[in-house]
């Protein structure tokens, strides 16, 4: 993803005259009000964004030929405010925007709002130095225009969701009795630093795709089908890979712990027991056991507070009062706070 500019772009592009003429004809830019010089400038900008500064003419030609020039011409003509381009864009994509938004948000009113909001950005309601700023000016033709619109809508949707999570209404919190709590911060200390280091080593040695699979499946809790679609492979391929990964990870970490001086038994114990497993989330535990509406969140909080006061008088004991204390850990061996 080079951001360099084509320093010798004059040379590279002068050698591309024939190719540029063909590309402009293929783009049908004239029909949407785009000048040839404007089209060449656009190609130059995009090539400069993605190619190395001194890319040879052949590479530039190949790269430009791989772009979706027709859609690029349409999008950039729209960004420049050409009416004919907008007419075509509206016919082709206005309803599609809404359909894509429905697919993303799964709800009609939110979809309409999302689509209308993006449409305004595409049209360019903001102005800088008298020039309209359109989001379509950032379309580069690397993928289809429809795919690009999907991605942009998805980005906007994710951003809105994140903004919505940060802004929590206090009234909502007390009315519903639900805690819109932020994500619990990770405990500062792990079970054993050697386990962390060994795990980091093993994860670092994994292929990029394997780490992606682990993150998508175990962190995002995506289904095998979803992950398969993202990578463009069959679901069974993902299933096999994840199964192999899960089996080999434990083995690799144990080997790494062995290299760090742990015995096999110690390593297995360290890997098997995670002190965070023992920190029973009393809040959730109590709320699950109670019938809905019996206690508000605040009452649950008070109950937990009372429990904590009791436990504070017994040093060395874990919060999970009713949980069995594993052998060897009651005295805090291996635990660091």
């Amino acid at each position, binding site marked *: *993803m080079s951001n360099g500019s084509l320093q010798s772009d004059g040379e590279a592009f002068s050698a591309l005259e024939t190719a540029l003429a063909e590309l402009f004809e293929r783009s*049908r830019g004239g*029909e*949407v009000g785009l000048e040839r010089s404007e089209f060449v400038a656009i190609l130059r900008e995009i090539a400069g964004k993605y190619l190395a500064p001194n890319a040879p003419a052949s590479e530039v030609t190949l790269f430009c030929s791989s772009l979706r020039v027709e859609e690029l011409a*349409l999008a950039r003509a729209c960004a420049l405010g050409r009416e*004919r*381009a907008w007419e*075509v864009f509206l*016919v*082709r994509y206005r309803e599609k925007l809404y359909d*894509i938004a429905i*697919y*993303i948000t799964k709800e009609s009113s939110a979809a309409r709002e999302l689509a209308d909001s993006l449409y305004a950005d595409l049209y360019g309601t903001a102005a800088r130095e008298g020039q309209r700023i359109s989001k379509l000016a*950032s*379309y*580069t033709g*690397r*993928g*289809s225009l*429809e*795919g*690009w619109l*999907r*991605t942009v*809508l*998805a*980005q906007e*949707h*994710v951003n809105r969701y*994140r903004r919505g999570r940060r802004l929590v209404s206090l009234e909502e919190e007390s009315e519903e009795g639900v805690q819109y709590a932020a994500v619990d911060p*990770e405990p500062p200390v792990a079970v054993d630093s050697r*386990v*962390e280091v060994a*795990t*980091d080593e093993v*994860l670092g040695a994994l292929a*990029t*795709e394997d*780490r*992606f699979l*682990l*993150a*998508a*499946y*175990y*962190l*995002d809790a995506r289904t095998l089908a979803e992950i398969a*679609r*993202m990578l*463009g492979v069959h679901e069974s391929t993902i*299933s096999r890979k994840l199964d192999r*990964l*899960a089996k080999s*990870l*434990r083995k690799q*970490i144990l080997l790494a712990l062995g290299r760090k001086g742990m015995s096999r038994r110690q390593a297995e114990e360290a*890997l098997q027991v*995670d002190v*965070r*497993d023992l920190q029973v989330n009393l809040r959730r535990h109590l709320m699950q056991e109670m019938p809905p509406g019996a206690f508000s969140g605040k009452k649950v909080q008070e109950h937990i507070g009372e429990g904590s006061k009791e436990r504070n008088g017994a040093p060395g004991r874990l919060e999970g009062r009713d949980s069995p204390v594993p052998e060897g850990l009651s005295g805090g061996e291996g635990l660091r706070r």
Partner: protein
Amino acid sequence: MEQIPKIVGQRLRATATVGPHPDAGLLTAFVEKSLSGHERGQVLEHLAQCAGCREVVSLSLPETVAGQAVLLKPLRGWWLSWPALRWVAVAACIVVVGALFTDRHLQHEKLATLAPGNQTLSLALKNDSDLKTSGARSENDRLAAKLEAPPVAPPKRDLNRPREAVKAPSPAQSAGAIAARAAATESMANAKVYSYSAPAQGVQAPSASQSVEVATAPSPTMPTRSEPAKNHASADGSFSSNMEPRSTNETVEVAAEAPAVEIAEATPGKAKEAKKSLQKESQAQMASNMTARSGAADQLAVQAKNYSAMVGLAPPARWTISAGGAVERSLDAGKTWQPVPVADHVIFRAVSALGTEVWAGGTGGALYHSSDSGQTWVQVKPNAGGTPLTADIISLQFLDAQQGKLMTADHQTWITTDAGKSWQKQ
């Protein structure tokens, strides 16, 4: 799925160092698999660490993929989930294919052992094996072969008549052509048969210019799947042949080709040689000759359409308007687009398609309707209370074949509830 140690999940989160996010163009290219290996690796590296971008990629996957996945799911019915039945299905296919080949082999042997003087040249389709020997051995052929013709007695060859040959149409590739041949068997009883014999001594074989009148299916050039632009495909991807409809009982002259062998007088030895060479030629000709009443052309188009709809091999057609105001159609889910001729001197601005029903509207109130996925178009002239529609049509929406709405550039809305026969202006 086997679980991983919890520490792995913890460390995956903790060690995620998210760099600059790839732009929307790169993410789109990643989803559409149009990135180079190096770029793909870079994007994947970022996605392995950035949950937000993973979510964006997941949401931006095209829904057609999911739709197709859902569509494909029912094919894996409960009966196919039994491994034993799967193998039974495979074995059954092998038996069927073996039977087809054996049958063909027997047919060839039968032809080779025809007695002298009783050789016949058949210009009609005889049976299944002829259907199967012609054209590509595709799934289309096997299914179309089910529409088999009753066997027809091959014509007897009269040795006193000059040998005549008929230029056969090129082997059919499309489903429509196969179905056309199959349907043509209805007219087998009326197919002309020819008989010929080795001519008298000194008589030359007929020249290339000699023509033979046959009743044959129209369109000597069959469209192929590789030329979707020329095939008039329906919205569900069915094909129909390029055969133009003809009036009933119309015959078409087909030029005869000069035979490769000069036929001499029928002496036992030479006649046998001549007959053997003729047998070889007739076998080749039988593979691709057909007769049909031209009136069956309409039946062929309907059967081809129904057959292709049954098979449903091609993806549904998509429609759009080009930058130049032309109606365009894609048969490969939007990868390529082909212009569809509708009307000259009209700049189209809106198109709406529902199955095989397609509506296109443009400047000056031009409105066209096709009920066969763009094969033929009919101009519709909306008129409400004596006032015709003259404004530019910019939007078309049809809920079903009957109910539709159009909008114009000057904010008029016209509605029909009877497939365009009458319109009301809102």
